[in-house]
């Protein structure tokens, strides 16, 4: 790892100031992706801006018909928080399958969203639930946030402060984990909420996406059978040693069926 300066601001405003002053500085939340990347010298920031001292990034609260989760909330907290378990149990169950216990104890929802790993779990949930990503300066609908592999709509000095999930009537999640790395080969999050039916897919493509055909089918009839015959085109899906694009395309249908069953 190359060395770097270290800052620990105590407010979002101070963190953003530090980011704006140095374009080569990087914010760090749980560090579960960033630190391994630094060890491999894939990244050479001049400074790390540790967000763990910022109280306003923590906490889970209900705001009207939505659950708002602070960016520094860990996967473990999402998996076990009583309000999330009560309002969006599928989201809590999803968080309980991220990485392993030690990763869930450190990794955060804000970090995962901002990183936008193709195999990350939360983006599929954010898309399916029509979530809004909150930053230091604006609110970004999930549909406009995830732009491509490790790419989001965030500006260089913009910080994710939280995410707001509209509470759905029902939601479910299923994924096939790579047996070795345990990352999602393909995961599907389904939700029936105030803004309609959402189907979010992760792991299959360079970036999480919504499966519109399945959304239409589930809007007409909420059942696993409704998506069983829908084939995901493999054209833009990932193909690697773990599975071909055609394999992942098939998994989209299989996982969608299981996710609907999970939602009940």
């Amino acid at each position, binding site marked *: 790892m190359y060395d*770097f300066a*270290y800052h620990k601001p105590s407010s979002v405003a101070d963190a953003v100031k530090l980011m704006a002053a140095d374009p080569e500085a990087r914010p760090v939340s749980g*560090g579960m992706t960033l630190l391994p990347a630094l060890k491999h010298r894939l990244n050479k920031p001049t400074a790390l801006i*540790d967000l763990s001292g910022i109280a306003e990034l923590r906490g889970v609260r209900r705001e009207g018909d939505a659950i708002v989760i602070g960016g520094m909330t860990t996967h473990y907290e999402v998996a076990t928080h009583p309000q999330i378990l009560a309002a969006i149990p599928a989201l809590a169950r999803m968080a309980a399958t991220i990485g*392993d216990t*030690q990763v869930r104890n450190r990794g955060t929802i804000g970090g995962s969203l901002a990183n936008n790993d193709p195999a990350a779990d939360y983006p599929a949930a954010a898309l399916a639930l029509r979530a809004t990503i909150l930053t230091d300066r604006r609110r970004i609908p999930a549909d406009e946030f995830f732009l491509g592999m490790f790419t989001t709509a965030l500006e260089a000095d913009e910080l994710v402060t939280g995410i707001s999930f509209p509470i759905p009537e029902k939601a479910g999640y299923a994924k096939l984990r790579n047996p070795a790395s345990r990352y999602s080969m393909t995961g599907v999050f389904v939700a029936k909420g105030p803004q309609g039916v959402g189907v979010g897919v992760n792991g299959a493509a360079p970036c999480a996406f919504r499966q519109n055909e399945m959304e239409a089918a589930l809007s007409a009839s909420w059942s696993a059978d409704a998506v069983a015959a829908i084939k995901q085109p493999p054209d833009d899906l990932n193909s690697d040693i773990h599975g071909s694009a055609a394999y992942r395309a098939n998994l989209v249908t299989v996982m969608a069926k299981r996710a609907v069953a999970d939602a009940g």
Partner: protein
Amino acid sequence: MPQVSLTVNGKSHTVDVEGRTLLVEVLREKLRLTGTHVGCDTSQCGACVVQVGEDSVKACTILAVQLDGAEITTIEGLAAADGTLHPMQEAFREYHALQCGFCTPGMVMSAIDLVKKHPSGLSEQEIREGLEGNICRCTGYHNIVKAIAAAAEVMNGKRSELARAAE
């Protein structure tokens, strides 16, 4: 050079570190607490698991500077001053929950976190899932699972066969 103050196994330490210094480097190289192992150095194998506050973490994937003021427990901090083993260590010994022993410190630290977060008890399935972040390349998981099940009963205050036998 940044300075961090850590409480490790109840003892306060102030150490000079670089921004990039990992917790496991401070533990092993500065404090000479070499019970915490580095297996993969890529946050997969869990040989480096220690307790930070209430949580188990992988000490190879956390910077020392992030932990100023933190309370840390390593495998060396589990046994009582008179040498009496922690119930988890005792169960690992009783059930022979190791082969080469390299993964054992991390297994024990993860297992204690798992038991503490499941005060009402643990199924075999929950134990196996709870060990997802710890890899034993001898593949000796079976006795590890048995040991954790036994230690969970002791730690949760139920008198197990193991505890009764010891009396």
